[in-house]
């Protein structure tokens, strides 16, 4: 079973101070730490687990700057066999990314394509399902369990409120992977050092037949901090004082 996994290098913004670029079109990224998109990590581990069960190879593909090689190396250390880095277009949107990925993946042998449900940064949640349509393949999104049998993937999709849906998708197919499908594993330094020896193939956009390099559907005009609605009353003082105030609030509000 040959599996292609699409991955993205994203800035980790959860605990970072965020500033907006002068042109107002994006956040400043030079002080941010970048890493593998959380969802994509689950997709890579799932692909590697399927490979261990059924044989075949796992190829990871990323569109990104040279630094994207770091996340591809991490994927190789997690057990992927080969890596492709595709040149990043000057500006893009989810639809263009899906088009570029389709061009790169066409040349690879595959039975299954995995992506994350969405990216932590722009959160379109669009690329995997669009990619399936471009390649003429069936898909299932928000997948949290995969079983392969008789050329089909029996998958569970996560719905709302704890409900799940069991369905069957004919292979080859695209599945978008939800966090929690498997357990994060520690990636050792020696595995990373070993992975650095493996080749990451670099591909230019024209090399894979991409001539249109502009966003296809959407353009970000401006980014801004969300309007501050009702802000919490921040309790001030030493930890003891703060806890004192908090205890009073809890007493009062518990009624």
């Amino acid at each position, binding site marked *: 079973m040959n599996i292609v996994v699409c991955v993205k290098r994203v800035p980790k913004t959860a605990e970072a101070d965020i500033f907006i670029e002068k042109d107002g079109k994006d956040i400043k990224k030079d002080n941010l730490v970048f890493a593998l998109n959380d969802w994509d990590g689950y997709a890579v581990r799932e692909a590697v687990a399927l490979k261990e069960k059924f044989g075949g190879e796992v190829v990871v593909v990323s569109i990104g700057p040279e630094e994207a090689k770091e996340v591809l190396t991490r994927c190789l250390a997690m057990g992927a066999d080969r890596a492709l880095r595709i040149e990043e277009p000057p500006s893009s949107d989810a639809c263009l990314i899906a088009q570029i990925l389709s061009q790169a993946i066409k040349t690879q042998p595959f039975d299954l394509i995995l992506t994350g449900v969405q990216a932590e940064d722009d959160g379109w949640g669009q690329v995997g399902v669009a990619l399936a349509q471009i390649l003429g393949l069936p898909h299932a999104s928000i997948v949290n369990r995969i079983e392969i049998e008789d050329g089909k993937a029996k998958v569970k999709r996560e719905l709302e*409120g704890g409900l799940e849906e069991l369905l069957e998708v004919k292979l080859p197919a695209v599945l978008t992977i939800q966090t929690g499908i498997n357990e994060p594993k520690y990636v050792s330094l020696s595995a990373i050092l070993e992975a650095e020896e493996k080749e990451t193939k670099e591909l230019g956009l024209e090399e894979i037949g991409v001539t249109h390099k502009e966003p296809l559907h959407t353009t970000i005009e401006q980014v801004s901090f*969300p309007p501050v609605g009702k802000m919490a009353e921040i309790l001030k003082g030493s930890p003891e004082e703060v806890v004192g105030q908090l205890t009073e609030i809890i007493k009062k509000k518990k009624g």
Partner: protein
Amino acid sequence: MGEIFVLVEHRQGKIRDITYEMIGLGENLANQKRTSLTALLLGQDVKTMAEDLSSRVSKVLVVDDENLRNFNSVLYQQALSSLISKYQPILLLIGHSAFGMDLAPSLSIETDLPLVTDCIGLWFENEKLKAIRSIYGGKVNASVSLKESRGYIATIRPGVFAPKPVGEKKGAIIMEHSPLKGATDIKKFIEYIEAPITGEDITQAEILVSVGQGIGGPEHIPMFEELAKNLGGTIACSRPVVDRNWLPKERQVGISGKTVKPKIYIAIGISGAFQHVTAMQGSETIIAINKDPRAPIFSVADYGIVDDFKNVIPILKEKVKGQTL
């Protein structure tokens, strides 16, 4: 001019809230564009739902087909692309939900209509559609413009727009001939799997001590359990905690977990992603403890402590011990 379409989301015989929220938004957009709003209802035996909708919109288009009983993106897409080419709507609204996320991106490629997903704001400016999206984990909003097109598709974030209540309208219910040619074997719905009913029910708790990824690791869980116990409450968590197996799924507050409305909700190390906030903002009092003063959780909380939980929780835990709160 083409109309604005809302794709009705329903599951297990019930219309989902996002549908009414999209009707609320769609009506404003239809007024702006001086056109009308139509609800698209795909399913089987959906008469009751059609009647409910007809009191809120001017027209309900119904495709009744046994193959549309349960959601299947392949069959829904077939029916929708046929309706789109017949009616040429200027905009189709779909929920940004497990249902819409499985459908909108492929439909957009097939119909060649530009798509913008997960919108928290949407309007027309001249002939172009514009949207507001929340990006970088809710830290920044982006205003997005779509390229000029005869029609658009937008998926709408649940819980953002005011729902359209039952109204006085007497919208027409129009039965469409089903464009489907039978079932499909590429993608088959098998069954729904309900969440198992287990031990403690967090939806019944009066006080929830809810922990997020910011607590750093599972080694701190016992301390929060003790705090919950001392407060006469229950421990809950956000999604990353379940993904990392620090607590079981039944403890999860969020869109894919449980919706809670306790008297007091204490969020510790939870940044406040909308998937979480949507499911706890109905709590009577919300207290947030987070070391990041810009964490979105502080804009839903009533009271906040900006500090490392390690400086606060041990003191709080002891202070409330044995007290009748």
